[in-house]
């Protein structure tokens, strides 16, 4: 659906910019509705498999080959979950961009790229085939890089886009090498079929290493986090949250690969601890670098890195104990659920914060915190949204950040108390840096040159409001959200046998 809309957008744009904007919003709203419908279906009925070009996945070319040769789309708990996140973030970002991008040229291309990015986000999660994953990864990279570097009059935008495309291309090539290795060994590209046929040979280990490194790079974990601030900061309009959502989908693709493809055959403690350590480093480096930033959006992107550390920590803990059923039941499942819950929470409140940062830039023309002051009186809605986002990200109790972080703290404590201590310290430092931003940007004496600044236009408020509303919704009903959306996703990851049999055995 978004792909179709993406290609129709330039045509509609010829009619007029109003028509095009409406078309984009309607298309994304339809995507959102479809994703919700699919999600409800999956939660009620189990894993859904859709085969492109045949009725069942195991139908083959009749004459000579007996292997499944179709590309399948497969939606399970994790896919539905990430699809929800992607659609919501894309919709909010698009609505936000309507007024943010009004003065820019080339808007047709902007919306086309935005729709392509949304399509690839949903596509990565809904696919059951490794090569399809690679193709969507590349679509994501190209559209994300073009959107990051969209405002070519700023040199940092161009630099950010360039770094993103280089990093993404190299990471995607590594993924392609590992796909080649899988194909050479097993003659299969279907994730479920590979999981069935996998013997954990030396080549598989190399492929695993390549996949883990490449997908960690694409999601922006330390030590390959250096492209993240340069890319998210100058991203045009409302696309910073969408590009961030794209990185989160790469993270979920990593989880999909590690859990559903390899599952119990991994040397779990090693890979689990690699993920945990990557998470810890990300958390710590992200937040310490954030403390010294003077650029509002750059500070927030360092926080994005640090929050991804939380997600990696949660899922890494679950991964490290995957082979031990009692540990899994006791705290592994909760760890994975905490990590995944944190993914969607982060998409919402980090996206909200990035949008508020962009709102400040839009109204003031600068992102430098040293120059701002006292905007709380002029931009009341933005200030309110910022407070919601900042409290949520620091894990302050009424908000959903607290719920997911609590799950992560509780479960990582069982594995090793040091993990919890580091996570708590990072949380405190997060709150510290957001206090700094709040004080610098919104309170304090009013700067004379910005005294005439008004609040942001309506569509930007609506875009921010969607994400803020989702944050508040998740904060008020965390148990409901966790039970309906998060635990099925965690179970989908843990239940590798179910995944395989749903795809292969359902035939």
């Amino acid at each position: 659906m978004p792909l179709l809309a993406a290609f129709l957008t330039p045509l509609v744009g010829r009619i007029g910019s109003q028509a095009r904007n409406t078309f984009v919003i309607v298309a994304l709203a339809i995507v959102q509705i479809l994703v919700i419908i699919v999600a409800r279906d999956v939660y009620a009925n189990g894993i859904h498999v859709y085969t492109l070009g045949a009725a069942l996945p195991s139908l083959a070319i009749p004459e000579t080959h007996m292997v499944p040769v179709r590309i399948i789309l497969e939606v399970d708990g994790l896919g539905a979950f990430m699809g929800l996140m992607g659609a919501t973030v894309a919709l909010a970002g698009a609505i936000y961009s309507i007024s943010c991008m009004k003065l820019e040229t080339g808007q047709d291309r902007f919306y086309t790229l935005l729709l392509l990015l949304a399509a690839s986000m949903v596509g990565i999660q809904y696919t059951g085939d490794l090569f399809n994953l690679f193709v969507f990864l590349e679509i994501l990279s190209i559209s994300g890089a073009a959107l990051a570097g969209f405002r070519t009059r700023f040199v940092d935008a161009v630099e950010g886009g360039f770094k993103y495309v280089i990093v993404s291309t190299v990471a995607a090539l590594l993924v392609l090498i590992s796909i080649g290795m899988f194909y050479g060994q097993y003659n299969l590209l279907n994730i479920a079929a590979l999981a069935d046929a996998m013997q954990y040979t030396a080549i598989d280990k190399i492929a695993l290493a390549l996949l883990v490194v490449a997908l960690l790079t694409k999601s922006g974990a330390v030590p390959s986090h250096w492209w993240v601030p340069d890319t998210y900061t100058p991203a045009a309009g409302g696309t910073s949250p969408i590009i961030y959502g794209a990185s989160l989908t790469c993270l979920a693709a990593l989880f999909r690969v590690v859990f559903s493809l390899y599952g119990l055959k991994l040397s779990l403690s090693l890979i689990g601890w690699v993920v945990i350590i990557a998470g810890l480093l990300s958390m710590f480096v992200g937040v310490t670098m954030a403390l010294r930033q003077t650029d509002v959006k750059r500070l927030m992107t360092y926080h994005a890195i640090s929050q991804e550390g939380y997600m990696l920590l949660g899922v890494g803990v679950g991964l490290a104990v995957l082979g031990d059923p009692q540990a899994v039941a006791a705290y592994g499942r909760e760890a994975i659920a905490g990590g995944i819950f944190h993914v969607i929470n982060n998409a919402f409140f980090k996206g909200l914060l990035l949008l508020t940062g962009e709102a400040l830039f839009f109204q003031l023309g600068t992102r430098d915190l040293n120059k701002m002051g006292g905007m709380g009186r002029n931009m009341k809605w933005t200030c309110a949204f910022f407070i919601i986002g900042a409290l949520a990200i620091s894990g302050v109790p009424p908000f959903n950040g607290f719920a997911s972080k609590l799950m992560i703290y509780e479960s990582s404590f069982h594995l090793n108390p040091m993990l919890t201590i580091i996570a708590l310290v990072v949380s405190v430092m997060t709150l510290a840096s957001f206090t700094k931003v709040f004080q610098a940007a919104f309170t304090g004496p009013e700067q004379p040159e910005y005294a005439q600044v008004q609040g942001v236009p309506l569509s930007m408020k609506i875009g921010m409001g969607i994400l803020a509303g989702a944050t508040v919704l998740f904060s008020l009903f965390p148990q409901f959200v966790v039970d309906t959306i998060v635990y099925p996703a965690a179970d989908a990851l843990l239940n590798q046998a179910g995944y395989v049999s749903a795809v292969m055995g359902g035939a």
Partner: protein
Amino acid sequence: MSTIVTNAPFIGVAALACVGLYIMLAQRNLIKIVMGITIFESAVNLFLVSLGYRNEGIAPIFTNATGTHMVLPVPQALTLTSIVIGVATTALMLTFIVLIYRHTGETDAKKSRRVKG
């Protein structure tokens, strides 16, 4: 000796990949870095195609086939997709280099950095 001959494509892959990696890491001119990435991409494509080779296999086309022992067609499809994607990404990278040059007048990676910290 025959091991080297049968594995010659893969040795070529390794050589190309090493060359591409070295260029990516060691060069400072932006365009040369993109060239390094392109070489690495060619190495990966070569890897994919040579995976599919079967000894004495013919091209995988059913009409007028002289036998049924064919090389695998799927890696060829993968490689075609990868080549097309490579074209798109290389175009995008080069566009960005042109824009960076317009802004900073430099194509040296160290001198054209404007964002720090």
